[in-house]
């Protein structure tokens, strides 16, 4: 739909979308075009760029370019999975809390507050220490860290929308809560939610990258951008590309997501903000 792609007309939207497309292309197609194996040593460790390996080799002599091309999948995949899971949790909690406004709301929100008390990284580290390091733990952990914030935003948006006439009209028709939420509320909170989803995705990337960098997430010999930074950081002076290339990819990805989110927010802005009403005297 043309309407949905309106954000592309903004420079920030077009650039952001191009970056995202590029990163996704690298992650998806990278392994197909990678010149070498990401795990087999190619030659001398930490050699500089050469014809065979344009970005040189890492501390074990593996080709940096090939590892870079393989390393996008885990970053994108884990972050996307964690963000989606965070949304499944946060959206349901936020919608229910914002819509019912009865006892459920304070109960849900206080438990959310408790979750918000934990520093995200610390929470994840404790979880990994307890449950062991696996892809599932990583995804669930990041989702649990993110869900409270999602639910707060969704709740606030829902609170605002659920007193509008069209929601009340549906309630007066006697429609069930799920029908009201899906038909009347959800489409109208999509604006802030979509924008937030972009930001959450960025956070997820950063948290996962941090954990991987600390060596507590994905384990070697996996190729992962954050893992690559962590492995090679001691040898920054010898072959800087082994650290800078994956770091640049993460940075570019983050910028791309933010630019896109911002452009989407602005393009939605006009249709989501109701025109000011001149005189409403109750």
């Amino acid at each position, binding site marked *: 739909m043309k309407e949905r792609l309106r954000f592309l007309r903004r420079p920030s939207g077009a650039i952001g979308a191009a970056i995202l497309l590029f990163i996704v292309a690298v992650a998806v197609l990278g392994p197909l075009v990678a010149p070498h194996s990401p795990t087999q040593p190619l030659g001398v460790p930490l050699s500089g760029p050469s014809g065979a390996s344009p970005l040189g080799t890492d501390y074990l002599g593996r080709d940096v370019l090939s590892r870079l091309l393989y390393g996008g999948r885990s970053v994108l995949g884990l972050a996307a999975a964690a963000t989606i899971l965070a949304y499944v949790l946060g959206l349901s909690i936020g919608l229910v809390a914002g819509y019912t406004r009865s006892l459920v709301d304070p109960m849900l929100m206080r438990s959310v507050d408790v979750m918000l008390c934990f520093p995200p990284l610390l929470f994840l580290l404790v979880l990994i220490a307890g449950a062991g390091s696996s892809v599932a733990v990583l995804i669930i952990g990041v989702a649990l860290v993110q869900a409270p914030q999602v639910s707060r935003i969704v709740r606030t948006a829902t609170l605002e929308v659920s007193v*509008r*006439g*069209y929601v*009340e*009209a*549906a*309630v*007066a*028709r*006697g*429609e*069930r809560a799920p029908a009201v939420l899906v*038909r*009347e509320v959800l*489409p*109208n909170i*999509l604006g802030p939610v979509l924008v937030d989803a972009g930001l959450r995705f960025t956070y997820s990337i950063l948290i996962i990258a941090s954990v991987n960098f600390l060596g507590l997430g994905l384990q070697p010999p996996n190729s992962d951008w954050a893992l690559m930074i962590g492995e090679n950081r001691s040898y920054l002076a010898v072959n800087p590309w082994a650290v800078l290339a994956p770091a640049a990819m993460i940075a570019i990805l983050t910028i791309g997501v933010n630019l896109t989110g911002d452009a989407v927010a602005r393009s939605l802005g006009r*249709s*989501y903000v*109701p*025109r000011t*009403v*001149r*005189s*409403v*005297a*109750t």
Partner: protein
Amino acid sequence: MESPVVRVDHLALALNTGEPVIDDISFQIAPGEILGVVGESGSGKSTLALALLGYTRPGVAFRAGTIAVGGESVIGRDTRSLRELRGKVVSYVPQDPGGALNPSMRVGDAILDVLRAHRPQASGDESLTAALARVELHRDRGFDRRYPHQLSGGQQQRVTIAMATVCEPPVAVLDEPTTGLDVLTQDRVLAELLRLRADEHVAMVYVSHDLAVVARMADRILVMYAGRVLEAGPTSTVLEHPQHPYTRALVSAIPDVRQPRALRGIGGVSVGVGDWPPGCPFAPRCEHAQPRCESSLPSLEATAGHHDVRCCRWQELALEQAQETSARTQFGVPSGAALLEVSRLEARYQSQQDDRPAVRDVSFAIEPGECVALVGESGSGKSTIARCIAGLHVPSAGTITFDGRPVKGAARVRPLDVRRRIQIVFQNPYQSLNPRQRVHSSIERPLRILRRLSQDAARHEVDGLLERVRLPARLAERFPGELSGGERQRVAIARALAAKPDLLVCDEVTSALDVSVQAAVLELLQELRVDLHLSMLFITHNLGVVACIADSVLVMDNGSVCETGPVNAVLNAPANDYTRRLLNAAPSLSHERSPVDHPAGLKVTAPVRPL
């Protein structure tokens, strides 16, 4: 005659893209005179008001003409010298005082700010006391130390008036200063302004869409439409003998407490900037339009008594005028079993900090086909009653009986038939339709849910319902964002009618609409009532609307009913003191002006002729 303080000469403003916003406006204002500028939204009246301060909205620029205020030309000055002028020579009172006052500034400081900008040497203390006293906010009660949020809407507006008058400018521009205030507060603010004019001899430009308010305030009226003056003249002659069909339509669109009559809306939509027709801008909506109206723009012609009109047929039309006003028709209501009976209703307003009764011990009945009005100020609990009846608010005590059977509190637990037969239309047309759904799916929903129609059958009925509320069928495919306020409210009414209700609860359905649109919506509701034998509970703060549409009325004050009875009886001979106050405060075209409104010496001021 005194020399005018405001002299506007052939003023024209246009968008940067070239489309005219205001064209060929000329008028003068004498010291102490009040000029009322009237028009629908989009008529350019606010643009004109701001132009008097040398301000144009971004994208709008002066194109031609001159404005002189207090002898000084306004156009062509730089920002710095305009700032010299504003507040000292001409000041501005905005529409929304809550948004206009700096929330982090004590109101006393805000007023002093204006003073210091123009009179650094003046004694701030004395001037502040005087400025506040002028609007009856007394310093000894600490008003100057308050922040805007600690004041009521009316007090906030009085602070902006104090700000506008602290430097005693000869001219004040007021842009809808009482829109959004309730009647009693509006009445006080208007009285304040009239006293200011009498005491300080301030000339005012009073911009409003409400002819009844302007009738009370203005000495002369300028009727604007599509950026042009269609009619101008002394208030009494313009209102009593309007010459232009547009003014006549506006006058007959006003619900008047003192002269209840059948309201007539103005058909069509007012023209926006960018699509002005070549001829008379009102011709497309005018019932007297002839081909020549559409070909060329009529000039502003003088009629008798300093009265100007821009219509090529005004002389012919003047003859037809006599038969136009028709008294409102009262419907005989068959008394019998009540359709809805509310008895000893109590509803509480609950929030985390607060638990207080919003409605106390309210009882009333609606007979089949009857229209009962519920009147009161903001916060009087009238909307809560509507919500209780619609099943959106569960009452804490009392019973609601519908068609002989008691109904439960929440809509969810009411039987389908009751939900179908009671429908509600909400106040704010900008929020009553789901912006993500096309008009037809909004209307189909009650057909599917409440009348259990199939998808096809529902789709089939939509066109008929749109026609019922006088909307073209092509709107069915639109989104609410593409509709005007009046059109949205019609769609909301169509959505309610889709259920084939017996009782329609209208919660302030016209309060956000322009007068002409309001009249059209009320006209529609009246027609639906007769055709479909609907009963109505009509909630409003506007007594004029009550007089024009309701059969009986309940006056609410602070959660309980203080007076009830047939409309004629209550409005003509109110027994309750609060009702009397409401009635006296209601602006009316035939407002009896008290002597303070027209101080001696001003009464005889010859109306100033437009150039």
